[in-house]
């Protein structure tokens, strides 16, 4: 493969559905982590309930709107269940409990006795046919793009178009929220919880609101991933997914409006570029090894980013709580 087509392929992913779905989930995480300072290390659990909400609706023959409603309802319930006991406690507890809960959810949907509801290890398929996600697609069949690599099918354009539209709506909503008094309280909690309490704000309620809203955005992203793939299985929703979202948020700039969007685009471009480059070296790298190298680079990247540029691409060092106080 030529280097030009590697770049083209990486660009295709960077503006395609993968980046769009990550941007949507990362927006939710940004509200929780970037604006409120909540260390939700189980974001993937919210994506999981969103995806399974949609899949179960499809399995039962309900409509796509019921699917979205289920996804959102499940995320709200999950956020309340997690948030009420832990948001009162120190931040460390939230991180341990959320990562544990995300893992529980994955194990439960994967377990054999859960098969009637979740399909266990096999998952649930046939979402596109049952829900008719691609039916309103008005883009004529065909391939759109430049060259051989930077091309999209009409289905790809449809799902990425809808998801980017959702990202836009969510980002504009977040922009108006964080500029409101409500958003200023969130940032005050992030900077100094005790000071916010001293000013008479009910810190737990604000944190819970941010947690629920952010989780809902995660669930929507999960539902879109399910719709785009047409099937849902348990293997995708593992802890590294959460930390990929952290990388996206921190890369773009935690606590900035457009950070998750920029972060998702840059993250997917780099990831796919590394993938293509590993396949293009003078020596042979097996698929499993190159997957591991890719993740190892992500880990190192996350560390270096956090240490040397915690404000990310868009953030300002002054406002970034993570740079230390």
């Amino acid at each position: 493969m030529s280097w030009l087509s590697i770049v083209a392929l990486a660009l295709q992913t960077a503006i395609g559905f993968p980046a769009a779905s990550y941007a949507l989930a990362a927006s939710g995480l940004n509200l929780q982590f970037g604006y409120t300072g909540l260390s939700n290390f189980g974001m993937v659990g919210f994506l999981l309930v969103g995806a399974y909400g949609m899949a179960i609706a499809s399995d039962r023959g309900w409509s796509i709107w019921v699917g979205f409603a289920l996804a959102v309802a499940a995320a709200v319930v999950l956020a309340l269940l997690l948030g009420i006991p832990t948001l009162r406690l120190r931040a460390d507890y939230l991180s341990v409990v959320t990562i544990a809960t995300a893992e529980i959810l994955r194990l439960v949907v994967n377990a054999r006795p859960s098969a009637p509801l979740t399909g266990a290890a096999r998952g649930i398929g046939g979402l596109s046919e049952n829900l008719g996600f691609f039916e309103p697609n008005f883009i004529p069949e065909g391939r759109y793009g430049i060259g051989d690599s930077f091309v999209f099918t009409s289905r790809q354009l449809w799902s990425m178009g809808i998801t980017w539209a959702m990202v836009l709506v969510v980002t504009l909503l977040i922009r108006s929220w964080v500029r409101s008094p409500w958003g200023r309280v969130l940032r005050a909690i992030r900077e100094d919880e005790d000071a916010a309490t001293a000013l008479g704000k009910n810190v737990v309620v604000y944190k819970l609101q941010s947690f629920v809203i952010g989780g809902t955005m995660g669930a929507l992203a999960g539902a879109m991933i399910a719709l785009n793939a047409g099937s849902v299985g348990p293997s995708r929703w593992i802890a590294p997914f959460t930390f990929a979202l952290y990388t996206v948020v921190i890369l773009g700039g935690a606590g900035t409006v457009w950070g998750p969007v920029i972060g998702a685009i840059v993250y997917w471009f780099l990831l796919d570029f590394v993938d293509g480059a590993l396949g293009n070296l003078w020596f042979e790298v097996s698929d499993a090894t190159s997957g591991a190298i890719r993740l190892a680079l992500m880990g190192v990247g996350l560390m270096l980013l956090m240490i040397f540029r915690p404000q990310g691409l868009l953030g300002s060092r002054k406002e970034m709580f993570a740079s230390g106080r």
Partner: protein
Amino acid sequence: MIDDEPAFADGATVTVTQGGTEVGSATTGADGVFVVEIPGNGTYEVALDTDSLPKGFSLTDEDRATLSGFRVNLGDQQATFRLGDDQRGGREFSDYATTFAKGLRLGLIIAVAAVGLSLVYGVTGLINFAHAELVTFGAIAAYALTSAGVPFWLAVPIAVALGAGVGLANDRLLWLPLRRRRMAMVSQMVVSIGLSIAARNLFQVFYGPNSNRYSVSTGQRESAYGPFRLTPNDLAVIAICVAVLLAVTVLLRKTRLGTAIRATADNPDLAASSGIAVDRIIGVVWMLCGALAALGGILYGLTLNVRYDMGFVLLLSMFAAVVLGGLGNAYGAVLGAVVIGVVQEMSGLFIDTAYKFVVALAVLILVLLIRPQGILGSKERFG
């Protein structure tokens, strides 16, 4: 069971398929055991040909001739077909006792591995997600040494010493500079996550995705000790764990170093002003943490096998243990670990084993609801 004697089906055919394609098949021997080589972890379907069962044998549950969605996570996994009349109601006392002992073994291993996590949290306030990789490192180092021809009894102390070195290097190269920069704790946690992901995947690159067994853990036979049925390795593991945990207790309680560690954990500023070299104490704690984690990894590897993500599999149990006992409380971590280990293993007797981990994590969340400071934690330290 035939006439109260254990009986095994000889010559029954078992076929393993993955995604519709046959992976392999095997015929059981006189001991009723079949072994099928599989290409790696994944989800398989294990089917028993009921027509091939010898005369007088039949499945307990006719619907379970095929085990679909059979997951292999740790390299190898046992698939069992129950034959004869359903006797699940009448499980013997020794089954409970043995499962309890295995739970105790798991709990003690978690304790050895997790004490370091708790100590580091105590002196620095860091929840180190990369602790799992210290555990894996110990197991892999010992495996590499034994593969290079070093006898196992010598490989263990070398690997533990290497673990201590890695622990110290962790502190001196990464965490000490970050503490000096006064980096926020949440950011430090994110750094430890990055380190964990990087290290785990580098293990996969260099060690490979396969699981291997230590040569000393093959060919182990269970024998009865009272109501417990344990292998010699089980006994050795339990003995080592108890000895090490006692040694750590003595270290913390009776020595000057232990006093300094506890003082630092209690209040670093006060400790520094009363003449304790806090950074040196933290370095020592990291060494201890690395050594104990490495030992825990080796012991865990002895009971199962050695894999690049074995520590990560154990990580949530370690977290559960540490939080259950009270964050930063080393004795609490031991107690929490034993509870988690026993609950995890015993729950397998009553509910589907697939939910084993879920039970441990559910216990964790329940404890946070009812007693957030943990079993041994003190209330006033929590805000």
